[in-house]
C-alpha cells in the first residue's frame, strides 16, 4: 500500500468513526480530479453528481480497505451515481457536457460526439493517468474491450482534430 493510500485509509477510517473533519480533508484532496472527470461526463450536473458521490462515500467510509487508490474507489461511486442519473432522467444530451476551461471548446465538441463509455475511458486513461486495468474495472468491461474503446475514442477524436486543423 502506498503512503498516499495509507493516509486516505486512515482518514476514511476516522470518517467512518464519525469524524467529519477527516472526511472534509478527503473531499478537499479529491474534489478537483473527480469534478473535472464529471464535468466531462455530466456537464452542468457535475457538481450535483460529485456531491452525491461524496455523500455515498461518506456513508460507505468503513468499506474502503485501502487496496485500491481512494480516487479510484471514489470515482467508481461517482460513476454509479452518473449511471443512476442517466437512468433516472431522459438521456442527457451530449451538448450538456461543459468545457472545463477556456481553450477547450473544440475538445468539448470532440467529446460530445463520443459515447459515454468512450468519453469516460478516454478522459480517465489519457487525461487522469488511470491504468487500463483501473478504467476497465470502473466501466465493468474486460481489459481488451477497454483498450479498444480507448483506441476507438482516440481515433474519432483524431479525425475531428485533424479536420479542424485543415479547416
Amino acid at each position, binding site marked *: 500500500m502506498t503512503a498516499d493510500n495509507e493516509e486516505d485509509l486512515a482518514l476514511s477510517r476516522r470518517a467512518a468513526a464519525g469524524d467529519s473533519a477527516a472526511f472534509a480533508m478527503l473531499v*478537499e484532496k479529491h474534489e478537483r480530479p473527480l469534478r473535472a472527470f464529471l464535468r466531462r461526463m455530466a456537464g452542468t450536473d457535475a457538481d450535483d453528481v460529485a456531491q452525491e458521490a461524496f455523500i455515498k462515500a461518506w456513508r460507505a467510509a468503513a468499506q474502503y480497505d485501502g487496496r485500491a487508490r481512494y480516487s479510484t474507489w471514489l470515482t467508481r461511486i461517482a460513476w454509479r451515481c452518473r449511471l443512476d442519473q442517466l437512468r433516472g432522467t431522459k438521456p442527457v444530451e451530449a451538448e450538456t457536457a461543459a468545457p472545463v476551461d477556456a481553450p477547450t471548446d473544440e475538445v468539448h465538441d470532440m467529446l460530445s460526439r463520443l459515447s459515454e463509455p468512450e468519453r469516460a475511458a478516454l478522459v480517465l486513461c489519457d487525461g487522469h493517468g488511470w491504468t487500463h486495468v483501473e478504467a476497465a474495472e470502473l466501466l465493468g468491461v474486460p481489459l481488451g474491450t477497454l483498450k479498444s474503446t480507448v483506441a476507438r475514442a482516440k481515433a474519432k477524436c483524431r479525425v475531428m482534430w485533424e479536420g479542424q486543423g485543415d479547416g
Partner: protein
Amino acid sequence: MAEAFESFLSEVLAPPTRDPDRAFVAKVQARMALEQGMEAQRRALFGKFFRDLLGIAAVAAGLIVMGGSPELLAFASESPGAVLAIVAILFSFLLLVIGRGGPRSAGAGADPALFNHLARLRS
C-alpha cells in the same frame, strides 16, 4: 502529428491545476449535516410509529380479553348504551394519544430550517 495529437489530448483532458475549492467542501459538509439531521428524524419517526403500534395492540388485546368475560357480556346485554359510550370514550382517548404525537411534535428532528436548507442546497 501523432505525438502532437497525443500531447494535445493529454493536456486538455488533464484535471485543472488549482487550489482546493473550499466552497464545494463546505457544501458537502452542509449536506452531511443535513443527512445526519434527517437520519435522526427518520429514527424518531420510526420509534414513534412502533410505540403507537404497540399501544394500539395493547388496547386491542385488552378489549378482546375483556370481551370474553361473562360478567361484561351480561352487562352489555343489559345496558348496550353504556357499553357503546365506554367504547366511544376509549376510542377518543386513543385518538388523543396518537394525535398528541403527530407530525408537529414528532420530534426531535422535525426542523423546518433543515428542509429550507436542503432546498437552498439543491437550487
